[in-house]
Protein backbone atom coordinates (compact mmCIF):
# COMPACT_ATOMS: atom_id res chain seq x y z
CA UNK A 1 0.00 0.00 0.00
CA UNK A 2 2.73 2.44 1.07
CA UNK A 3 4.80 1.44 -1.95
CA UNK A 4 1.83 2.11 -4.23
CA UNK A 5 1.39 5.58 -2.71
CA UNK A 6 5.08 6.37 -3.18
CA UNK A 7 4.96 5.19 -6.78
CA UNK A 8 1.88 7.32 -7.39
CA UNK A 9 3.51 10.39 -5.84
CA UNK A 10 6.71 10.01 -7.92
CA UNK A 11 4.88 9.05 -11.08
CA UNK A 12 5.70 6.05 -13.22
CA UNK A 13 5.63 4.84 -16.81
CA UNK A 14 4.24 1.61 -18.15
CA UNK A 15 6.25 0.73 -21.19
CA UNK A 16 6.79 -1.99 -23.75
CA UNK A 17 10.32 -3.08 -24.63
CA UNK A 18 10.80 -5.03 -27.84
CA UNK A 19 13.97 -6.22 -29.53
CA UNK A 20 16.36 -9.10 -29.92
CA UNK A 21 17.81 -9.20 -26.42
CA UNK A 22 15.30 -7.98 -23.89
CA UNK A 23 17.19 -9.83 -21.10
CA UNK A 24 20.18 -7.62 -21.85
CA UNK A 25 18.02 -4.58 -21.29
CA UNK A 26 16.88 -5.98 -17.94
CA UNK A 27 20.50 -6.42 -16.82
CA UNK A 28 21.48 -2.92 -17.97
CA UNK A 29 18.66 -1.33 -16.02
CA UNK A 30 19.59 -3.36 -12.94
CA UNK A 31 23.24 -2.29 -13.18
CA UNK A 32 22.22 1.36 -13.41
CA UNK A 33 20.08 1.11 -10.28
CA UNK A 34 16.82 1.38 -12.17
CA UNK A 35 14.04 -0.49 -10.49
CA UNK A 36 11.57 -2.39 -12.68
CA UNK A 37 8.34 -3.95 -11.54
CA UNK A 38 5.30 -5.74 -12.97
CA UNK A 39 7.41 -7.24 -15.74
CA UNK A 40 5.46 -9.54 -18.07
CA UNK A 41 6.79 -11.38 -21.04
CA UNK A 42 4.98 -10.74 -24.34
CA UNK A 43 5.75 -11.70 -27.89
CA UNK A 44 9.10 -10.25 -28.88
CA UNK A 45 9.72 -8.38 -25.65
CA UNK A 46 8.17 -7.53 -22.35
CA UNK A 47 5.98 -5.01 -20.60
CA UNK A 48 7.06 -3.36 -17.33
CA UNK A 49 6.92 -0.27 -15.15
CA UNK A 50 9.58 2.19 -13.99
CA UNK A 51 9.70 5.66 -12.48
CA UNK A 52 9.31 8.63 -14.84
CA UNK A 53 12.72 10.01 -13.87
CA UNK A 54 14.40 6.68 -14.60
CA UNK A 55 12.68 6.37 -17.96
CA UNK A 56 14.29 9.58 -19.26
CA UNK A 57 17.76 8.30 -18.37
CA UNK A 58 17.29 4.76 -19.65
CA UNK A 59 16.32 5.56 -23.25
CA UNK A 60 19.94 5.91 -24.59
CA UNK A 61 20.91 2.67 -22.85
CA UNK A 62 17.97 0.87 -24.43
CA UNK A 63 19.18 1.88 -27.86
CA UNK A 64 22.59 0.41 -27.04
CA UNK A 65 20.93 -2.89 -26.02
CA UNK A 66 19.03 -3.05 -29.28
CA UNK A 67 15.70 -2.61 -27.60
CA UNK A 68 12.97 -0.23 -28.67
CA UNK A 69 10.93 1.35 -25.91
CA UNK A 70 7.36 2.49 -26.30
CA UNK A 71 5.37 4.25 -23.61
CA UNK A 72 2.00 2.59 -23.06
CA UNK A 73 0.72 4.71 -20.19
CA UNK A 74 1.85 7.44 -17.82
CA UNK A 75 0.49 7.25 -14.31
CA UNK A 76 0.88 9.08 -11.00
CA UNK A 77 0.61 12.59 -9.61
CA UNK A 78 3.02 14.34 -12.04
CA UNK A 79 1.05 12.95 -15.01
CA UNK A 80 -2.19 14.05 -13.41
CA UNK A 81 -0.84 17.54 -12.79
CA UNK A 82 0.45 17.73 -16.35
CA UNK A 83 -2.92 16.68 -17.74
CA UNK A 84 -4.70 19.43 -15.79
CA UNK A 85 -2.04 22.11 -16.33
CA UNK A 86 -4.49 24.16 -18.40
CA UNK A 87 -6.91 24.36 -15.47
CA UNK A 88 -4.93 25.79 -12.57
CA UNK A 89 -8.09 26.18 -10.48
CA UNK A 90 -8.29 22.43 -9.96
CA UNK A 91 -4.63 22.22 -8.91
CA UNK A 92 -5.01 25.24 -6.64
CA UNK A 93 -8.22 23.82 -5.19
CA UNK A 94 -6.47 20.53 -4.44
CA UNK A 95 -3.57 22.37 -2.80
CA UNK A 96 -6.02 24.55 -0.84
CA UNK A 97 -7.80 21.42 0.34
CA UNK A 98 -4.60 19.79 1.54
CA UNK A 99 -3.53 23.06 3.20
CA UNK A 100 -6.93 23.44 4.88
CA UNK A 101 -6.82 19.91 6.25
CA UNK A 102 -3.29 20.51 7.51
CA UNK A 103 -4.13 23.84 9.15
CA UNK A 104 -7.44 22.69 10.63
CA UNK A 105 -5.79 19.65 12.15
CA UNK A 106 -3.77 22.02 14.32
CA UNK A 107 -6.87 23.24 16.17
CA UNK A 108 -9.31 21.67 18.61
CA UNK A 109 -12.61 20.86 16.91
CA UNK A 110 -14.65 19.67 19.86
CA UNK A 111 -14.32 19.35 23.62
CA UNK A 112 -16.27 16.60 25.36
CA UNK A 113 -16.60 16.47 29.14
CA UNK A 114 -17.75 13.29 30.91
CA UNK A 115 -18.12 12.32 34.55
CA UNK A 116 -19.72 15.48 35.96
CA UNK A 117 -22.34 15.08 38.68
CA UNK A 118 -22.69 18.29 40.68
CA UNK A 119 -20.54 20.72 38.69
CA UNK A 120 -22.44 21.93 35.63
CA UNK A 121 -21.00 21.32 32.19
CA UNK A 122 -21.11 25.04 31.32
CA UNK A 123 -19.15 25.82 34.48
CA UNK A 124 -16.56 23.19 33.58
CA UNK A 125 -16.31 24.51 30.01
CA UNK A 126 -15.68 27.98 31.48
CA UNK A 127 -12.91 26.65 33.71
CA UNK A 128 -11.32 24.77 30.80
CA UNK A 129 -11.54 27.88 28.65
CA UNK A 130 -9.62 29.85 31.29
CA UNK A 131 -6.92 27.19 31.11
CA UNK A 132 -6.79 27.43 27.32
CA UNK A 133 -8.84 24.40 26.25
CA UNK A 134 -11.78 25.37 24.03
CA UNK A 135 -13.11 24.80 20.54
CA UNK A 136 -10.66 26.58 18.25
CA UNK A 137 -7.66 26.38 20.62
CA UNK A 138 -4.24 26.01 18.97
CA UNK A 139 -3.33 22.39 19.61
CA UNK A 140 0.50 22.59 19.77
CA UNK A 141 0.19 25.21 22.56
CA UNK A 142 -1.88 22.90 24.76
CA UNK A 143 -0.35 20.96 27.61
CA UNK A 144 -2.98 18.40 28.62
CA UNK A 145 -1.16 17.39 31.81
CA UNK A 146 -0.76 21.00 32.96
CA UNK A 147 -4.44 21.79 32.30
CA UNK A 148 -5.61 18.78 34.32
CA UNK A 149 -3.22 19.56 37.20
CA UNK A 150 -4.23 23.24 37.38
CA UNK A 151 -7.95 22.49 37.36
CA UNK A 152 -7.51 19.89 40.13
CA UNK A 153 -5.55 22.41 42.24
CA UNK A 154 -7.88 25.37 41.64
CA UNK A 155 -11.25 23.65 41.93
CA UNK A 156 -11.86 21.92 45.27
CA UNK A 157 -14.83 19.99 43.84
CA UNK A 158 -12.67 18.13 41.30
CA UNK A 159 -10.93 15.07 42.69
CA UNK A 160 -9.34 13.75 39.51
CA UNK A 161 -9.17 14.88 35.91
CA UNK A 162 -7.60 13.66 32.69
CA UNK A 163 -7.41 15.55 29.42
CA UNK A 164 -6.96 13.34 26.37
CA UNK A 165 -6.31 14.96 23.03
CA UNK A 166 -6.78 12.61 20.09
CA UNK A 167 -6.36 14.34 16.78
CA UNK A 168 -8.55 17.41 16.97
CA UNK A 169 -10.87 15.94 19.59
CA UNK A 170 -10.37 16.70 23.28
CA UNK A 171 -11.96 14.36 25.79
CA UNK A 172 -12.01 15.47 29.41
CA UNK A 173 -12.75 12.87 32.07
CA UNK A 174 -13.65 14.16 35.50
CA UNK A 175 -14.23 12.55 38.88
CA UNK A 176 -15.70 14.84 41.48
CA UNK A 177 -14.53 14.75 45.08
CA UNK A 178 -16.69 12.87 47.55
CA UNK A 179 -17.57 15.35 50.30
CA UNK A 180 -17.10 14.03 53.85
CA UNK A 181 -20.39 13.63 55.72
CA UNK A 182 -21.29 16.14 58.41
CA UNK A 183 -20.37 14.84 61.85
CA UNK A 184 -23.10 15.39 64.42
CA UNK A 185 -21.65 16.75 67.61
CA UNK A 186 -23.15 14.68 70.40
CA UNK A 187 -20.62 15.44 73.13
CA UNK A 188 -20.39 19.22 73.56
CA UNK A 189 -22.63 20.22 76.48
CA UNK A 190 -25.53 22.32 75.26
CA UNK A 191 -29.12 23.41 75.96
CA UNK A 192 -32.08 23.27 73.61
CA UNK A 193 -33.74 26.65 73.09
CA UNK A 194 -36.62 28.04 71.04
CA UNK A 195 -35.80 29.47 67.63
CA UNK A 196 -39.16 31.32 67.34
CA UNK A 197 -42.12 32.44 69.42
CA UNK A 198 -44.87 29.83 69.52
CA UNK A 199 -47.07 27.43 71.42
CA UNK A 200 -45.59 24.01 72.05
CA UNK A 201 -47.58 21.09 70.67
CA UNK A 202 -45.25 18.21 71.41
CA UNK A 203 -41.80 17.58 72.86
CA UNK A 204 -39.69 14.53 72.14
CA UNK A 205 -36.72 14.74 74.49
CA UNK A 206 -33.73 12.56 73.57
CA UNK A 207 -31.22 13.86 76.14
CA UNK A 208 -31.31 16.46 78.92
CA UNK A 209 -33.99 17.70 81.27
CA UNK A 210 -37.25 19.00 79.75
CA UNK A 211 -38.09 22.39 81.27
CA UNK A 212 -41.31 23.34 79.44
CA UNK A 213 -44.57 21.48 78.98
CA UNK A 214 -46.84 20.85 76.00
CA UNK A 215 -49.39 23.64 75.56
CA UNK A 216 -47.19 26.36 77.04
CA UNK A 217 -46.21 29.43 75.08
CA UNK A 218 -42.52 30.18 74.53
CA UNK A 219 -40.58 33.14 73.22
CA UNK A 220 -37.56 33.17 71.00
CA UNK A 221 -34.42 32.11 72.92
CA UNK A 222 -36.31 30.55 75.83
CA UNK A 223 -34.75 27.42 77.38
CA UNK A 224 -36.74 24.31 76.47
CA UNK A 225 -34.48 21.40 77.44
CA UNK A 226 -31.62 21.91 79.87
CA UNK A 227 -28.20 20.33 79.36
CA UNK A 228 -27.50 20.39 83.11
CA UNK A 229 -28.85 17.16 84.57
CA UNK A 230 -29.04 16.44 88.28
CA UNK A 231 -28.25 12.87 89.27
CA UNK A 232 -29.93 10.88 92.01
CA UNK A 233 -27.06 11.63 94.41
CA UNK A 234 -27.58 15.38 93.94
CA UNK A 235 -24.53 16.01 91.75
CA UNK A 236 -24.97 17.85 88.46
CA UNK A 237 -23.47 16.83 85.14
CA UNK A 238 -23.48 18.39 81.69
CA UNK A 239 -25.00 16.60 78.69
CA UNK A 240 -25.58 17.34 75.05
CA UNK A 241 -29.30 18.07 75.23
CA UNK A 242 -31.33 17.03 72.19
CA UNK A 243 -35.05 17.22 71.49
CA UNK A 244 -37.62 17.68 68.80
CA UNK A 245 -40.02 20.46 69.81
CA UNK A 246 -43.01 20.96 67.53
CA UNK A 247 -44.74 24.29 68.03
CA UNK A 248 -47.47 26.34 66.40
CA UNK A 249 -45.84 29.51 65.07
CA UNK A 250 -46.84 32.48 62.93
CA UNK A 251 -44.98 34.00 59.97
CA UNK A 252 -45.89 37.32 58.40
CA UNK A 253 -45.06 38.38 54.88
CA UNK A 254 -45.95 41.47 52.85
CA UNK A 255 -46.05 41.57 49.03
CA UNK A 256 -46.73 44.67 46.96
CA UNK A 257 -47.17 45.67 43.32
CA UNK A 258 -47.98 49.04 41.69
CA UNK A 259 -51.44 49.24 40.14
CA UNK A 260 -49.97 50.50 36.87
CA UNK A 261 -46.64 49.50 35.33
CA UNK A 262 -45.02 48.88 31.98
CA UNK A 263 -43.54 45.66 30.62
CA UNK A 264 -41.76 44.70 27.41
CA UNK A 265 -43.81 42.30 25.26
CA UNK A 266 -42.89 40.51 22.05
CA UNK A 267 -44.36 41.93 18.84
CA UNK A 268 -44.91 40.19 15.51
CA UNK A 269 -41.95 41.99 13.97
CA UNK A 270 -38.88 39.77 13.77
CA UNK A 271 -35.85 39.18 11.64
CA UNK A 272 -33.28 36.46 11.22
CA UNK A 273 -29.51 36.78 11.22
CA UNK A 274 -27.23 33.98 10.13
CA UNK A 275 -23.62 33.19 10.92
CA UNK A 276 -21.06 30.56 10.09
CA UNK A 277 -19.37 29.33 13.25
CA UNK A 278 -15.82 28.35 12.37
CA UNK A 279 -14.17 26.89 15.48
CA UNK A 280 -15.70 29.56 17.70
CA UNK A 281 -15.21 32.39 15.19
CA UNK A 282 -18.54 33.75 13.95
CA UNK A 283 -18.72 35.04 10.41
CA UNK A 284 -22.07 36.73 9.63
CA UNK A 285 -23.52 36.24 6.16
CA UNK A 286 -27.09 37.47 6.57
CA UNK A 287 -27.42 40.93 8.13
CA UNK A 288 -30.68 42.46 9.29
CA UNK A 289 -32.13 44.34 12.24
CA UNK A 290 -35.46 45.27 13.75
CA UNK A 291 -36.81 48.80 14.14
CA UNK A 292 -37.35 48.65 17.89
CA UNK A 293 -34.44 49.55 20.22
CA UNK A 294 -35.43 46.65 22.50
CA UNK A 295 -35.26 43.14 21.14
CA UNK A 296 -35.18 39.53 22.22
CA UNK A 297 -32.67 37.15 20.66
CA UNK A 298 -32.90 33.37 20.35
CA UNK A 299 -30.17 31.26 18.77
CA UNK A 300 -30.23 27.86 17.14
CA UNK A 301 -26.89 26.24 16.28
CA UNK A 302 -26.72 23.46 13.71
CA UNK A 303 -23.39 21.63 13.78
CA UNK A 304 -22.92 18.76 11.34
CA UNK A 305 -21.55 15.58 12.86
CA UNK A 306 -20.95 13.02 10.08
CA UNK A 307 -20.22 9.56 11.50
CA UNK A 308 -20.46 11.00 15.01
CA UNK A 309 -17.50 13.36 14.51
CA UNK A 310 -18.27 16.96 15.44
CA UNK A 311 -16.85 19.33 12.86
CA UNK A 312 -15.58 22.81 13.79
CA UNK A 313 -18.07 24.24 11.33
CA UNK A 314 -21.65 25.14 12.19
CA UNK A 315 -24.54 27.29 11.07
CA UNK A 316 -26.06 29.66 13.61
CA UNK A 317 -29.54 31.13 13.14
CA UNK A 318 -30.38 34.06 15.39
CA UNK A 319 -34.03 35.06 15.53
CA UNK A 320 -34.40 38.64 16.76
CA UNK A 321 -37.90 39.65 17.85
CA UNK A 322 -38.79 43.31 18.47
CA UNK A 323 -40.08 44.21 21.93
CA UNK A 324 -42.58 46.94 22.64
CA UNK A 325 -43.49 48.63 25.91
CA UNK A 326 -46.95 47.77 27.10
CA UNK A 327 -48.75 49.47 29.99
CA UNK A 328 -50.61 47.18 32.38
CA UNK A 329 -53.29 48.43 34.75
CA UNK A 330 -54.32 46.11 37.55
CA UNK A 331 -57.72 45.82 39.16
CA UNK A 332 -58.38 44.23 42.53
CA UNK A 333 -58.78 40.68 41.18
CA UNK A 334 -55.74 40.70 38.90
CA UNK A 335 -53.60 42.36 41.60
CA UNK A 336 -54.64 39.75 44.15
CA UNK A 337 -53.95 36.95 41.68
CA UNK A 338 -50.47 38.33 40.96
CA UNK A 339 -49.67 38.82 44.66
CA UNK A 340 -50.96 35.36 45.53
CA UNK A 341 -48.50 33.92 43.04
CA UNK A 342 -45.70 35.78 44.86
CA UNK A 343 -46.94 34.48 48.21
CA UNK A 344 -46.96 30.90 46.87
CA UNK A 345 -43.35 31.32 45.78
CA UNK A 346 -42.48 32.67 49.25
CA UNK A 347 -44.22 29.69 50.83
CA UNK A 348 -42.42 27.22 48.61
CA UNK A 349 -38.94 28.63 49.19
CA UNK A 350 -39.03 30.28 52.67
CA UNK A 351 -41.46 28.03 54.53
CA UNK A 352 -40.34 24.72 53.07
CA UNK A 353 -39.43 23.38 56.55
CA UNK A 354 -42.87 24.16 58.00
CA UNK A 355 -46.29 22.63 57.65
CA UNK A 356 -48.62 25.53 56.89
CA UNK A 357 -51.89 25.12 58.76
CA UNK A 358 -53.69 28.26 57.60
CA UNK A 359 -53.14 31.52 55.74
CA UNK A 360 -54.80 34.83 56.53
CA UNK A 361 -54.74 37.24 53.54
CA UNK A 362 -55.58 40.94 53.56
CA UNK A 363 -55.33 43.09 50.42
CA UNK A 364 -55.12 46.89 50.57
CA UNK A 365 -54.87 49.52 47.83
CA UNK A 366 -53.20 52.74 48.86
CA UNK A 367 -51.25 55.44 46.95
CA UNK A 368 -51.31 53.43 43.73
CA UNK A 369 -49.80 50.30 45.31
CA UNK A 370 -51.56 47.02 46.03
CA UNK A 371 -50.27 45.38 49.21
CA UNK A 372 -51.03 41.82 50.29
CA UNK A 373 -50.29 40.92 53.90
CA UNK A 374 -50.28 37.24 54.69
CA UNK A 375 -50.11 35.65 58.13
CA UNK A 376 -49.16 31.99 58.02
CA UNK A 377 -49.90 29.66 60.91
CA UNK A 378 -47.41 26.82 60.82
CA UNK A 379 -46.29 23.74 62.69
CA UNK A 380 -42.51 23.52 62.86
CA UNK A 381 -39.65 22.24 64.93
CA UNK A 382 -38.36 25.28 66.84
CA UNK A 383 -35.58 23.54 68.76
CA UNK A 384 -31.98 24.62 68.31
CA UNK A 385 -28.92 23.75 70.39
CA UNK A 386 -27.01 26.41 72.27
CA UNK A 387 -23.63 25.35 73.71
CA UNK A 388 -23.14 25.82 77.44
CA UNK A 389 -20.17 27.80 78.61
CA UNK A 390 -19.03 29.34 75.36
CA UNK A 391 -17.39 32.04 77.46
CA UNK A 392 -13.81 30.92 78.12
CA UNK A 393 -14.00 32.24 81.72
CA UNK A 394 -16.89 29.97 82.64
CA UNK A 395 -15.77 27.32 85.07
CA UNK A 396 -17.28 23.96 84.08
CA UNK A 397 -15.13 21.74 86.27
CA UNK A 398 -17.79 21.36 88.93
CA UNK A 399 -20.19 19.87 86.36
CA UNK A 400 -17.77 17.37 84.93
CA UNK A 401 -17.80 13.89 86.43
CA UNK A 402 -14.46 12.95 88.08
CA UNK A 403 -12.45 10.21 86.39
CA UNK A 404 -11.50 6.93 88.09
CA UNK A 405 -8.13 8.38 89.17
CA UNK A 406 -9.59 11.60 90.53
CA UNK A 407 -12.29 9.94 92.69
CA UNK A 408 -11.50 9.97 96.43
CA UNK A 409 -10.84 6.53 97.80
CA UNK A 410 -13.56 5.26 100.20
Amino acid at each position, binding site marked *: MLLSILRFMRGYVRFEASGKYPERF*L*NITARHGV*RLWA*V*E*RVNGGFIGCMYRSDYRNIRPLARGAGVVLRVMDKRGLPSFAFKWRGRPGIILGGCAFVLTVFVMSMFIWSVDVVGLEKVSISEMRGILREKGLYVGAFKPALDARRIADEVMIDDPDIGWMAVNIEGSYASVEVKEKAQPPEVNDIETPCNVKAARDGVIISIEGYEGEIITAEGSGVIKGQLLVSGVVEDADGSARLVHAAAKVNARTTHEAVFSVPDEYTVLVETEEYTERRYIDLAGLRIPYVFSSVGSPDSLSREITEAPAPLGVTLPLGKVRERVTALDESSITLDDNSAKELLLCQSELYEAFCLSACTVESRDHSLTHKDGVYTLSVVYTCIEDIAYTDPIGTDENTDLTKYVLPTEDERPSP
Partner: protein
Amino acid sequence: MLPPSVSAPCIELSGNREVLIEGSRGVLEYSPETVRINTADMILSVFGRGLDLRCISESALIIDGFVTRLEFTV
Protein backbone atom coordinates in the same frame (compact mmCIF):
# COMPACT_ATOMS: atom_id res chain seq x y z
CA MET B 1 23.89 -19.19 7.85
CA LEU B 2 26.64 -19.32 5.30
CA PRO B 3 30.06 -17.84 6.10
CA PRO B 4 30.77 -14.48 4.36
CA SER B 5 33.43 -16.03 2.15
CA VAL B 6 30.82 -18.15 0.38
CA SER B 7 29.14 -15.93 -2.20
CA ALA B 8 26.04 -18.09 -2.66
CA PRO B 9 22.68 -16.61 -3.57
CA CYS B 10 19.95 -16.47 -0.99
CA ILE B 11 16.74 -18.03 -2.30
CA GLU B 12 13.38 -17.74 -0.56
CA LEU B 13 10.34 -19.66 -1.73
CA SER B 14 6.72 -18.85 -0.80
CA GLY B 15 5.07 -22.13 -1.68
CA ASN B 16 5.49 -22.55 -5.40
CA ARG B 17 4.04 -19.14 -6.25
CA GLU B 18 6.87 -16.76 -5.48
CA VAL B 19 10.67 -16.94 -5.52
CA LEU B 20 12.88 -14.24 -4.02
CA ILE B 21 16.50 -14.42 -5.16
CA GLU B 22 19.16 -12.22 -3.57
CA GLY B 23 22.63 -12.15 -5.06
CA SER B 24 21.58 -12.07 -8.68
CA ARG B 25 24.19 -11.01 -11.28
CA GLY B 26 21.76 -10.73 -14.18
CA VAL B 27 18.95 -12.38 -16.10
CA LEU B 28 20.17 -14.77 -18.77
CA GLU B 29 16.84 -15.88 -20.12
CA TYR B 30 13.31 -14.79 -19.51
CA SER B 31 10.15 -16.42 -20.82
CA PRO B 32 6.80 -17.30 -19.24
CA GLU B 33 8.06 -20.87 -18.78
CA THR B 34 11.71 -20.34 -17.84
CA VAL B 35 13.77 -17.77 -16.00
CA ARG B 36 17.52 -18.32 -15.81
CA ILE B 37 19.44 -16.22 -13.32
CA ASN B 38 23.18 -15.82 -13.19
CA THR B 39 24.56 -15.90 -9.67
CA ALA B 40 28.23 -15.85 -8.69
CA ASP B 41 29.02 -19.56 -8.80
CA MET B 42 26.05 -21.13 -10.56
CA ILE B 43 23.12 -20.59 -12.83
CA LEU B 44 19.71 -20.92 -11.27
CA SER B 45 16.86 -21.98 -13.56
CA VAL B 46 13.26 -21.55 -12.51
CA PHE B 47 10.72 -23.53 -14.52
CA GLY B 48 6.99 -23.10 -14.38
CA ARG B 49 3.96 -21.48 -16.01
CA GLY B 50 3.08 -17.79 -16.33
CA LEU B 51 6.30 -16.57 -14.76
CA ASP B 52 6.52 -12.79 -14.26
CA LEU B 53 9.26 -10.63 -12.78
CA ARG B 54 7.44 -8.72 -10.12
CA CYS B 55 10.42 -6.55 -9.20
CA ILE B 56 14.02 -6.31 -10.39
CA SER B 57 16.77 -4.40 -8.64
CA GLU B 58 20.55 -4.46 -8.88
CA SER B 59 21.06 -7.61 -6.80
CA ALA B 60 17.63 -9.08 -6.20
CA LEU B 61 14.54 -10.09 -8.03
CA ILE B 62 11.16 -11.60 -7.30
CA ILE B 63 9.55 -14.13 -9.63
CA ASP B 64 5.79 -14.64 -9.54
CA GLY B 65 3.96 -17.52 -11.15
CA PHE B 66 3.39 -21.26 -10.87
CA VAL B 67 6.85 -22.73 -10.20
CA THR B 68 7.24 -26.38 -11.04
CA ARG B 69 10.98 -26.93 -10.81
CA LEU B 70 14.28 -25.34 -9.72
CA GLU B 71 17.57 -26.32 -11.27
CA PHE B 72 21.13 -25.40 -10.38
CA THR B 73 23.90 -25.56 -12.94
CA VAL B 74 27.34 -25.34 -11.40
